[in-house]
């Protein structure tokens, strides 16, 4: 198995490469840095087109040269250029060819420092990938020889989300990474005109937190019944006046990743207000691994296998 890192020529690829390195080291997989030469389409017999292709291939090679300088000796790695009709398609083909465990992509060029920013390629990947996609925040860096210190799975309170969390637990158990379940909610401002007090929403959120604690206790019991279970498990609930403070209300290790397995992922298709998954993604201080809709059943099945043996 391998970790495929998507390299975009002409962009800052360091966040994606650093995330790829830490994942490859923690999970013990090979790292494949793949630059997609998407100019291969439309296939044209005319000669000058091949000139143009050659130039683009050179640009891709140059990007990979930069990546090579970043790759450490302690992990097995390879750099490849792959021709495909589009960057998205090329990356997915590479994942299939390399039997990828995770696909890592970097942030869009216009993102805020420290935040994840979806670009057109990463948005497309979230719709069509059949494996978990790791998204690196803008300017992401890790210390040399760092390994993942924790894997957090975001829980939104739905049954699909619970299945994905079991899958994440299996992954963290197999790689010996401590595991945590986390839920987040903003304490939104109350409609002041309702005359019931501006702090009334706090008690509604407290009740929500109780529901989440009860659910996560059940999930922890299910994790305990797994054949392979993580050594260390924890639960965290983050609330605050907005999503940003809700996410920073819990402690984060460095490096840590968060698995996003919300059933609200469907809403990522059309980025809509109110999608919890989208809000978590936008405000996360750590890299996020999204389990796309197509990958969900395979991913959850790994937990069932682990429980059934």
């Amino acid at each position: 198995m391998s970790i495929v890192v998507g390299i975009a020529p002409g962009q800052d690829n360091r966040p994606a490469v650093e995330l790829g390195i830490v994942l490859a080291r923690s999970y013990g997989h090979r790292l494949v840095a793949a630059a997609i030469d998407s100019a291969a389409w439309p296939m044209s017999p005319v000669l000058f087109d091949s000139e143009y292709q050659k130039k683009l291939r050179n640009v891709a090679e140059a990007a990979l040269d930069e990546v090579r300088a970043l790759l450490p000796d302690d992990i097995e790695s390879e750099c490849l250029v792959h021709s495909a009709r589009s960057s998205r398609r090329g990356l997915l083909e590479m994942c299939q060819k390399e039997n990828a465990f995770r696909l890592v992509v970097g942030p869009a060029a216009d993102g805020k420092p420290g935040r994840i920013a979806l670009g057109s390629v990463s948005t497309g990947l979230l719709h069509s990938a059949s494996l978990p996609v790791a998204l690196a925040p803008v300017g992401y860096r890790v210390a040399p020889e760092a390994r993942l210190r924790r894997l957090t799975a975001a829980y939104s309170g739905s049954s699909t989300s619970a299945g994905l969390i079991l899958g994440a637990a299996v992954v963290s158990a197999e790689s010996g990474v401590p595991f945590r379940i986390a839920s987040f909610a903003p304490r939104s401002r109350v409609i002041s005109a309702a005359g019931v007090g501006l702090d009334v929403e706090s008690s509604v959120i407290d009740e929500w937190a109780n529901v989440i604690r009860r659910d996560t206790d059940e999930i922890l019991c299910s994790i305990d019944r797994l054949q392979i279970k993580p050594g260390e498990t924890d639960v965290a609930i983050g609330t605050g006046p907005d999503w940003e403070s809700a996410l920073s209300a819990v402690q984060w290790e460095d490096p840590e990743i968060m698995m996003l397995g919300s059933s609200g992922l469907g809403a990522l298709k059309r980025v809509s207000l109110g999608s919890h998954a989208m809000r978590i993604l936008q405000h996360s201080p750590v890299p996020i691994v999204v389990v796309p809709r197509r990958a969900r059943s395979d991913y959850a099945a790994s937990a069932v296998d682990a429980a059934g043996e």
Partner: protein
Amino acid sequence: MPTLRQQLFRVKPVPQQGEETGSDLKRTIGLFSLTMIGVGSTIGTGIFFILSESVPVAGPAVIWSFVIAGLVAGLAVICYAELAGSVPVSGSSYSYAYATLGELPAMGVAACLLLEYGVAGAAVAVGWSQYVNQLLFNLFGFEIPHALAYAPEEGGIVNLPAIALLAMCCFLLVRGTGESVVINTVMVCTKIGVLLFFVLVGVTGWNVDNFADFAPFGFSGVVAGSGLIFFSYVGMDAVATAGDETKNPKKTMPRALISALIIVTTVYVLVAIAALSAQPWQEFDGQTAGLSAILENIVGAQWPGTIVAAGAVISIFSVTLVSIYGQTRILFTMSRDGMMPKLFGEVNPRTLTPVKGTIIVTVVIAILAGFIPLNFLAEMTSIGTLVAFIVVSLAVIILRVREPDLERGFKVPFYPVLPVLAIIGCLWIISNLQIITIVVFLIWTSVVLGLYLIFGRRSSVLGKQRAAHDSIDGTGSAGGKK
């Protein structure tokens, strides 16, 4: 085993500042924001349709009805502010009564609040349906058939637009509070803009003759009008409940309350003057979508009326939203105290809202709105608010005597004159309401108190805590302070 008297008057301990829910609240609201909270939450609750209900009762002197209702509301709200500052709990006057007077009086207040919010939601939805019809007619020359737009007593079968409005609000609130707040802010701005537009266009039709017969029903008519109008000031208590988040509450709260009250009363009086100057008072009787109709008569064209009708349709929406919201949160708080079935306190983990409670509340309000006429609903809202205000004013006096050393964010000036005046003012307006309103109110309160005696008294969380405490240390001091 506590005696019945001990059970009925057990008092929830007053949490200290910062304890319980207060811990994560910061003092961020200044004088201007607080005044705007008061203005935004109050204006629009009744002014869009209450004129057609109150002018036939008071005549042009309805202007004084607005001022009297505003003064009484102001007195009560100042008492509210003291309690909000000294009892830092959510849940409105129900929680204040629970922490000061005891369980039975708290249930009485809850009955008033449930009536106030529930009926206000219904009343406003009924008013909305009139403006929807006006708007539909102006824009498309089409009206919802009478049978489907009015309550049975008004010759219809069911008020369908009102029910549709409630369903939309329910949908929004179930989806999540965050979006509702944004939508609410937009609507508050819309309604203030529309009212100013009404005043500007309305004064162009000024005719001093319309004020000739100023008070056809004398002073009693003015007071009766105040009773109907009172619920146009309900939103004022929103200012008081922000006590925990206000900077320098001792100075800011009374200033914001008084400023908001002056602004709101001024807008109301301006709207009333503009409306009365443009149309003889006798013509208000039975007029639907009053403000729109007045503008159409003045200008002789439909467009100003259409603007007002559209503004009313948008802004009244926000009031209904807030009413249902308030109702569900009060039931939530009561359910946490064991006074209501547990299902009102359940929060859906996906949407972070009490979904079941919201749906039940909407269905009940929809039944009221669909089948009961508007003026009766308006009076029922007022009596609920008035009684709740009396209890709050009383609680201020009781708490001053019982716990004189309690830290208070804001103190009522001229104590005990102001609380006593507030009580007298509220009682005076109640005495001028229709007898049927008072009777229905008493029946409703008895039903809620009956429910308490059967259900709440035994399932009270506080009661259970006290019983558990007593069985451990065997002191037997279960009763609260009396």
